[in-house]
């Protein structure tokens, strides 16, 4: 009877864990076989490097990454890690990447605001001086910070990838406002804007126009620069940036699980031996 109840409880839990708490209607994100998915998944350094280039040349025009420092690019399991430079601040490649970017600083002599080349110890600078400026330049919308974006959306990397590559022409009968773009993967409610035949389409409006296009970024490693490839690469970069310690976490976890598993077996046999003479 107790066993039956456990089965029942498991069924109930499956119910709870089941459908995601969807807000509005949106198309289910397409699932991608990410190299970093699963307990043994790892990032492909080349892909994350390409992804950084996509972020730097396309996304960073509007999106900040306030939690990222240039040094993060050269830390262990990061895209530009070099075992010769355990301290990423010394990594010449990371130094060179940082140098390309100008950051605001204060001149210590005069107290004036100056621009200088970034160092690995600097934060990724925000493209906007403040939120009002960001909204003013984007039709009132605020481009979200991308530091933890794949953790901050249901569907994670699949969702970000689907959104980036999911732009379609709005169906006939859908009134798209100025500065708005229709995307079936964006959550929203289209009923008020729908005058076409049949039920209103799923999806929502987004202030960002389709950001990627074939050939928009030139990959240094010769990879063909399709919009789809750019999306995959930038999502890999964003997934790494959301959780830069995830490879370390999984590797550490693998050892911990083996240890606990063997410890459990030893405890099981100790238990059997200690209890062997007790009729219970």
């Amino acid at each position, binding site marked *: 009877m107790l066993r039956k109840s456990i089965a029942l409880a498991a069924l109930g839990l499956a119910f709870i864990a089941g459908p995601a708490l969807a807000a509005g209607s949106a198309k289910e994100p397409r699932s991608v076989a990410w190299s970093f998915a699963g*307990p043994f998944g790892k990032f492909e350094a080349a892909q994350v490097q390409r992804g950084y280039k996509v972020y730097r040349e396309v996304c960073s025009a509007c999106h900040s990454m306030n939690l990222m420092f240039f040094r993060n690019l050269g830390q262990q399991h990061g895209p530009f890690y070099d075992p010769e430079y355990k301290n990423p601040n010394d990594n010449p490649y990371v130094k060179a990447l940082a140098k390309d970017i100008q950051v605001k600083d204060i001149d210590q002599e005069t107290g004036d605001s100056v621009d200088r080349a970034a160092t690995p110890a600097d934060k990724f600078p925000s493209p906007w001086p403040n939120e009002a400026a960001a909204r003013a330049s984007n039709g009132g919308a605020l481009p979200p910070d991308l530091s933890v974006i794949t953790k901050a959306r249901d569907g994670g990397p699949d969702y970000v990838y689907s959104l980036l590559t999911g732009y379609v022409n709005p169906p006939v009968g859908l009134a798209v406002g100025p500065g708005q773009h229709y995307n079936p993967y964006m959550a929203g409610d289209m009923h008020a804007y729908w005058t076409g035949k049949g039920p209103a389409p799923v999806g929502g409006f987004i202030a960002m126009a389709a950001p990627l296009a074939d050939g928009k970024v030139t990959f240094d490693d010769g990879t063909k620069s399709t919009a789809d490839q750019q999306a995959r690469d930038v999502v890999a970069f964003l997934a790494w940036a959301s959780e830069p310690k995830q490879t370390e976490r999984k590797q550490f*976890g693998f050892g911990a699980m083996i240890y606990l*598993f063997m410890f459990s077996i030893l*405890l099981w046999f100790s*238990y059997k031996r200690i209890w062997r003479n007790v009729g219970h």
Partner: protein
Amino acid sequence: MSGNSTYEPKTGIERWLDSRLPIVRFMNDTLVTFPTPKNLNYWFTFGGILALMLGLQIVTGIVLAMHYVPSADLAFASVERIMRDVNYGWLIRYMHANGASMFFLAVYLHMFRGLYYGSYKAPREVLWILGCAIYLVMIITAFMGYVLPWGQMSFHGAVVITNLIGAIPVIGPAITTWLWGGFAVDNATLNRFFSLHYLMPFVIAGLVVLHVWALHVTGNNNPKGVDVKSKEDTVPFHPYYTVKDGFAISIFLLLYMSFVFFNPNALGDAVNYVPANPLVTPAHIVPEWYLLPFYAILRAVPDKLMGVILMFGAIAVIFVLPWLDTSKVRSMRYRPTARLYFFIFVFVALVLGYCGGQLPDDQVIPGVSGLMLIDSDINSFVWLSRFATLYYFSYFMIILPVLGLTETPRPVPESITDPVLSHPATAPAGAMASPEKRG
């Protein structure tokens, strides 16, 4: 504390200490020689698991507090910085966040065990009430802890829950302002929640000491629910239950660590990785999974004050359970009718949890439009919550009181060691061969 101590100090220093502060005697009596029923199954291992979880939460929490910044402007980033720049910060933070979920999972299984085997009945009423108090303080602690990362769900969850206090007539709004430390959930609220979140676990630890003390006065209940009659019924706690609890703890850790290392955000809400913004309300505000049943009860009632009363009532009713259940038989092994109602209760509690995660007006069975009843379609989660809430309270306030007087329980064994001897006629053939496999 339990009286008949068998401890004999062996060394000079132990004898000296024993006549001044018998702490070694105390440790010996509670953790080594404590006579424990020999028929305890794995459902009885959750006490040990919970003690470990409390310890882990306190240790990881103290380390987190060394790096966390309780400020509305910096809290979100400081939590991320812990995971990015503090040595093993990701491990400490994910152990703490998932530890809360695992703590509640273990406490629910511990309560399930207590409800099923009647561990709340005389003479263990005080033990039970202390356990309920621990659970209540756990809820408060977990709620405040969830506010600390200052994400969207932290902030708006805090707004929803603190606003409930405002439903109290006359003095409610004043109490809410006092709790907030201002006129809205803001930096002052975050600061005091951090302070209280640090304090509460030590209140829990104090209650746990009392809980264990009460346990060691009455002794453990057991799956048969009969009293310990002789020395043959028990084994010393060590090594018998240290090894059995140890094995269970190790298996539990495997589950816990599989979340920490491979799916650390599965039990949380993605929206909480968006920094708190008072001007943008998330489409769907929900608490963590372990509080969903109470959230469903709250939303089942159209009136705010009544909803709050019922939600707190759902916890209050567990406190008085020892006086609601009129049956003298502890274990539901011998109460087939009560057992059936109990399993329905467990199922209903899970249904309430499911409802708590859904939008109240969404359809339970998609596409079927039912009857409008009072304020909404009967095929909606709000109505499912109402039926489930009705059963939740009926179970404690009608079914258990009445059933104890009307049901005919199966014969109860005389003692732990002789399960069926007193009723040979009712014993099924082969029952003696492997009594441990029963149930």
